[in-house]
């Protein structure tokens, strides 16, 4: 497997704060890679750095063999990276249709991908002409994911899709993300370790702005000491078996 995305020792500052102090990771094509971990570890900033929203001051980000650090965010996105931000940042004043339409990179994108999107998220078809702000939290999350699916993105950066959602809705999102993995490579930031462990093939643990360890998800779920150390004691035992491999 070749690496679709490679991040080499990036350092990112927000104002004067040194948030990322050398994060490195590589995302193989066709995989789901997870970044589990505590609040404030720098996971979201990692995604935002890749996306060009908080450009790193040092280090390299290589997408499809080309360096993209320092490029404008719209340029990076146009190369085929979709971003599903934290807190379901959909456009509340726009209808579901317009929320999807705005993501078109060339005319007809939505028509091409419509079937896939509505198969994954039938609710979106039902509320097609409703303002995004009137959807439920789960539907907004689905819309945010669907929006990243409209153009042919090769890589999706998904930030905390389970945040604030009811368990039953999380299950639906897990199912959707798993189907989605057939169409794009996914880099997933997720605090909900159960969800992350169900979905991901590989993991990187980012802590205090640095990558501390990485490996196969199947190994991590059985490594109680590691989980306790970096993800907190509450997570140990959360997913002792790896459901994805069942």
């Amino acid at each position: 497997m070749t690496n679709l995305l490679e991040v080499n020792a990036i350092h990112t500052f927000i104002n004067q704060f040194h948030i990322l102090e050398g994060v490195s990771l590589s995302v193989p094509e066709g995989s789901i890679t997870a970044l589990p971990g505590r609040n404030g570890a720098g996971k979201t900033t990692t995604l935002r750095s890749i996306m060009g929203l908080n450009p790193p001051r040092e280090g390299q980000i290589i997408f499809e063999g080309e360096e993209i650090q320092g490029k404008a965010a719209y340029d990076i996105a146009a190369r085929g990276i979709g971003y599903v931000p934290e807190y379901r940042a959909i456009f509340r004043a726009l209808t579901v249709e317009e929320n999807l339409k705005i993501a078109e990179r060339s005319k007809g994108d939505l028509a091409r991908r419509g079937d896939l999107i509505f198969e994954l998220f039938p609710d979106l078809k039902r509320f097609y002409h409703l303002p995004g702000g009137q959807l439920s939290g789960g539907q907004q999350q689905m819309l945010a994911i669907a929006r990243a699916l409209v153009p042919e993105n090769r890589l999706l950066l998904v930030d905390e899709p389970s945040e604030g959602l009811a368990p039953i809705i999380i299950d639906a999102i897990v199912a959707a993300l798993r189907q989605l993995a057939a169409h794009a490579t996914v880099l997933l930031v997720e605090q909900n370790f159960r969800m992350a462990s169900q979905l991901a093939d590989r993991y990187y643990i980012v802590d205090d702005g640095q990558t501390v360890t990485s490996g196969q998800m199947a190994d991590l779920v059985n490594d109680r000491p590691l989980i306790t150390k970096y993800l907190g004691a509450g997570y140990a035992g959360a997913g002792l078996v790896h459901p994805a491999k069942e």
Partner: protein
Amino acid sequence: MLSALRRNRPLLVTLVIVLVVLLLMARRFEPKVTASILLSGLTLGSLYFLVASGLSLIFGLMDVLNFAQGGIFMIGAYLGFTTYANPRLILNVLPFALAILGGVQVGRWLGGLLPARFKKRWLDTSFLILLFLLSLVLLLIGFRGFDLGALAAATATATGGAVATELAQEPAAVYVPRVALLTAAGLLLGIGLSRVGKVQMRQRTQGRTAIVGLVLIAAAFALVPFRTPAEAYLLSVSSNIRFILALLVGLLAGGGLGALIEISFIRPLYGRPLYQILLTLGLGYVLTELVKSVWGTAGYYMDTPAFFNARGDRCPSPNLWSWFSDHCQSISVLGRPFPSYRMFIIALGLVMFIAIALLLKRTRLGIIIRAGVQDSEMVQALGINVRRVFTLVFAIGCALAAVGGVAAAPFLGVNLGLGAEIQLQAFIAVVIGGMGSFVGAAVGALLVGMARAFGDQLVLSGIRLPWMDEAVRMSPSIARASTVLIMALVLLIRPTGLFGKKE
């Protein structure tokens, strides 16, 4: 149904209040007086809207309070008046603008062609500064001794009649070198910009840039010998055509000026709102001084075009329909004459409102603007160059203001006080309507316009409450104070304005 009511509650409350005021007015005044107050309010509201809509769009999308909008409105009025009364100034300045613009385009193309090694070696920061300085020097030499004031002064004496054309206009032998120097200045600027921008132009757009630039430069030189005949021609055609031309000049100049301001001044200051406010405030003063230095401090009177200017036995027109055939200066509204040109201002405001509403609702650009109002970063992350949209919206806002200025010139007169006054009223309108809301800007502008018209009438007739023996006279400033009063009231009840979103 209920939810629709709830969503439009601010609109409904406004409507009810306006209806109550209308009823009170109808009881107090004769119908014909009420009608003319309403029409005056609509006229003023329409002008306020043209400035307020841009203010609101720009603030909504990029959080910039553009206090230079009133200045642009004033520039629009002066440019429109100049184009209309005596196009000499425009005809003599247009080649300069074309030359610089064309030069910049060609320069950007040339800069793109330079080999990367050469650029790295020679076009580093210190050389860039040198390049820009050189460009500035060429610009200054190009404009040396060029008497804009004399050209504008010629305008002042020209009230439609023919003036000796050679007056104040430079012969080609002096004029052509100026155009050449400005082209060169633009060229250097363009080469510098191609390095600063750093964004590699795509092959396709590169060729187009060069061609557009060359065409602009060619047009600049080609226009030189036509300055005099074009002026004579323009003064001979009907005033209607000159008026349409004035509107077009306002639209283009306003848009161009807006784009220039955004790219060169606003763009480096995104995320620093205080600096931006200071900057746009300062720009307003600069624009006023600019106008002063070209047109002087005296105000001008602009005639309405023939379309709105017929006099005779059949005037005033008995109604709007007969006006379409006789083009009287005024139309009789319930027996009271109302200037027909103001109908045009109302129509212009309405057309612009519909046009922008359609743009926002129906086009991709509109979707991007509405999305950007909420979260421009996310729009960027979808692969859309938001900065370009910012420039475009700033240009649209300024173009609207400038067109408003042209339209206002025959109504309010052309003078230096124009900008500050309309800026204040438009700002009040936007605050009443809710910052960043387009419909809010329209409703706010209408309310402010109505308040002004109503206040003016009250000043004329005085207030007489039932228990009073005679009406109390008020000072004229009550009309101006009334709008601020409405703003204070609205803000007390709804701190975000009528249509503002809660933050």
